């Protein structure tokens, strides 16, 4: 330890949201010129804590010290002045503005823009060079890919003179290569004497880049350790409070017949954009087919079409040889009846009705089944009974079938949806983002359930933007980029680099691009 005072120090910070004690007696010390990780499950209080540092919320008790000086940070302005910059999980950028306009917002340097813009342009050129953060300052932010938008956020913080940079879940939207690039940038920042705080729930990132790590669990700080003194397993245990299996344990897949065939699907959306381009897939019994890709490359549309909620522009979907493409005859409800379960990507928008109770959500999509109906009214007792069995089997907390869906945490909401679809025992299960926003402990459980289904001879198609999840769970992996399936490979042959390159649309060898080549040939 040096005698120098830490760049940021928190002393016994407490924060309540009504009855919820979000941060309990948090103390933290971050040394200057280091990358400090803060890891914890969703809802552990990481983001709340950093929002307090950034002046978005005020702590109910406790002290914040910057460079040894007590600071009263009661709004973001005060925090910016104290030299803190924050890169939020959801970018705080105006899409219709240029990069330059976004960066000067709030520090325009005068009532008229002209002069400020010119000054900012020069200053940015210097910053870009110093930290190798190249970006076209005249481009509209809305036209930039996410990786570059993040760079704009970092520049924005540096332009405001940030000495301490806080990044909240920065890699959620990045490809592995983009994430690596970000890490290089963060290393450069550290080498230039900046202090970086990285909030994440991904162990890989903590191990890859941080110097020290603090672990939070249920609003409390449970450990501070040097990164080189710990391991992924140890951190996971600290986060969850018990030992967790990080690697999915599964036996060799025994693929059977193809239960579902996707033949030449094309899809043009309402804006006239071609979202899917000649998609062909086979989903086999006893196998998990993983669809990898950076979000927004057509996976969502594909899942909606397979689930029967959207009609493709051309092409068809065969289920056990029968054409089930959405049409006047077939819709999502008919698909459920013939044995096709669908866990939508977005549980809030499509998976649940949040103001409905858990037991009402339990029968959504199956609500016309005889067992839940008595004449014209619903059989509430039967609904609750089913819901209770789901709650027990999937360990949904709190175990209250009368609680509104909105009252459950993200992970438990996801379990509600998964239980509903899996307990119908479908032959084919379509799953979108099975563990998005789900805690590490629950992830382990969900993965086990999916493997069990596979071993029972069911066919599973899983779309996920988590590359680790796709790699550990799938038997076969198809990678999507720009509406194409750019390649399909056996999970055994998949490496993170290989998938990452494919996800970025870069082909290292020509053979996986069959779909693309075909279109060129036509």
């Amino acid at each position, binding site marked *: 330890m040096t005698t120098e005072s830490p760049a940021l120090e928190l002393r016994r910070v407490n924060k309540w949201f009504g009855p919820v004690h979000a941060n309990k007696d948090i103390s933290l010390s971050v040394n200057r010129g280091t990358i400090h990780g803060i890891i914890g499950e969703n809802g552990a209080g990481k983001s709340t804590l950093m929002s307090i540092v*950034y002046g978005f919320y005020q702590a109910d008790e406790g002290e914040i010290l910057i460079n040894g000086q007590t600071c009263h940070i009661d709004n973001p302005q005060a925090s910016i002045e104290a030299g803190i910059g924050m890169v939020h999980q959801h970018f705080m950028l105006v*899409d219709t503005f240029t990069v330059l*306009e976004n960066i000067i917002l*709030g520090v325009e340097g005068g009532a*008229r823009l002209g002069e400020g813009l010119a000054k900012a342009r020069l200053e940015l050129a210097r910053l870009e060079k110093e930290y190798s953060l190249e970006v076209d300052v005249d481009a509209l932010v809305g036209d930039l890919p996410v990786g570059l938008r993040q760079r704009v956020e970092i520049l924005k913080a540096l332009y405001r003179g940030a000495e301490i940079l806080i990044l909240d879940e920065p890699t959620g939207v990045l490809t592995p290569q983009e994430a690596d690039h970000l890490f290089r940038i963060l290393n450069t920042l550290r080498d230039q004497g900046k202090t970086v705080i990285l909030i994440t729930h991904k162990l890989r990132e903590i191990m890859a880049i941080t110097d020290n790590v603090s672990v939070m669990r249920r609003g409390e700080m449970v450990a501070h350790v040097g990164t080189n003194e710990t391991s992924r397993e140890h951190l996971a245990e600290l986060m969850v409070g018990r030992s967790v299996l990080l690697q999915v344990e599964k036996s060799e897949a025994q693929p059977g017949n193809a239960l579902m065939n996707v033949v030449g699907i094309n899809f043009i959306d309402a804006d006239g954009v071609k979202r899917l381009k000649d998609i062909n897939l086979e989903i086999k019994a006893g196998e998990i087919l993983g669809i990898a890709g950076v979000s927004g490359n057509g996976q969502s549309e594909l899942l909606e079409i397979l689930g029967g909620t959207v009609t493709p522009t051309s092409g068809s979907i065969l289920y056990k040889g029968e054409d089930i493409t959405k049409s006047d005859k077939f819709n999502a409800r008919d698909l459920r009846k013939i044995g096709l379960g669908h866990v939508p990507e977005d549980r809030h928008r499509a998976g649940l009705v949040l103001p409905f109770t858990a037991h009402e959500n339990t029968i959504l999509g199956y609500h016309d089944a005889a067992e839940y109906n008595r004449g014209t009214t619903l059989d509430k007792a039967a609904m609750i009974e089913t819901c209770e069995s789901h709650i027990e089997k999937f360990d949904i907390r709190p175990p209250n079938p009368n609680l509104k869906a909105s009252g459950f945490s993200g992970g438990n909401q996801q379990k509600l949806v998964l239980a509903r679809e899996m307990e119908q025992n479908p032959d084919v299960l379509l799953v979108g983002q099975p563990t998005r926003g789900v805690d590490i402990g629950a992830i382990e459980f969900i993965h086990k359930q999916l493997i069990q289904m596979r071993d029972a001879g069911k066919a599973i198609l899983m779309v996920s933007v988590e590359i680790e999840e796709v790699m550990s769970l799938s038997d076969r992996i198809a990678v999507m980029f720009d509406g194409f399936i750019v390649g399909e490979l056996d999970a055994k042959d998949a490496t993170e680099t290989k998938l990452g390159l494919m996800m970025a649309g870069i082909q290292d060898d020509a053979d996986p691009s069959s779909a693309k080549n075909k279109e060129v040939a036509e």
Partner: protein
Amino acid sequence: MEEFQIFITLMDATFRVATPLILAAMAGMFSERSGVVDIGLEGKMLGAAFAAATIASISGSAWVGLGAGIITSFSLSMLHAYACVTHKGNQVVSGMAINIMVAGLAPTLAFAWFRMGGQTPALKGDERFQSLTLPFADAVRDIPVIGYTYAELISGHNIIVYMAAASVPISAWVLFRTRFGLRVRAVGENPHAVDTAGISVNAIRYQALAVTGLLCGIGGSYLSTAHGAAFIRDMTAGKGYLALAALIFGKWKPLPTLLACLLFAFTDAVQVRLQGVDLPIVGVIPVQFIQALPYVLTVLLLAGFVGKANPPKAIGEPYIKER
């Protein structure tokens, strides 16, 4: 030459009709660009028209009347801000409430004060804004086309018409070339970005609505103290809504919005000329149909020809900090 004269007369009428539309549309642009829906333009204009006519009649000065109109519209705009920004109320409901309140209150007060059936006394002389003759207008009148256009079309309007004309470039400049404009546009697109940049979202919205109140007040005062010569019940006749339509048709941009206002005003001017005219084939069209023309056009344009409008992204949503 006769067609040219008719054209000039039509354009002259267009300018007069367009003035309140332009002022209200520019007013709406500030409000909506900051993310606050302003369906209450109508009520604000009506309130201003009433206040301006009343005070002009009492004080004997059109300028004092204009001041009263602006204060009234400004107060209503702040009421809207208090309901929608401070208390995060529904912006459409608040706007409608203002419209309904003013539509009832103005004639009631007029009746109570003047006993003239809900109108204010007719304004004479300095109680109204008089037409101005621009320099050299008479001297150049005889020069064909250019001189004539200057004398007949450009010159000879009252001061508020010129204010409306000036309001467009000034609004554009403020919105796109100043710090205030940048912040207004940002707050309408992504208030979270503004908040995290250390700027108060509410303060910016209040300021934008203050500008809305000012411009709307001028537009409303024009109706009763410049275009007309008294306050008449419901004298805005949907101009606030028409201005809002022009704003949407103009995609929240100053110049296209100006053009949309001129288009609406032009159909209104044509409509006046078409009344009672014997058209080939169809004959004389009943006057009600012709009067409906600008509104029919509005519906058609908004329904079919606007294309994809990109409204400010955060429009209509009260800003609430997320956890």
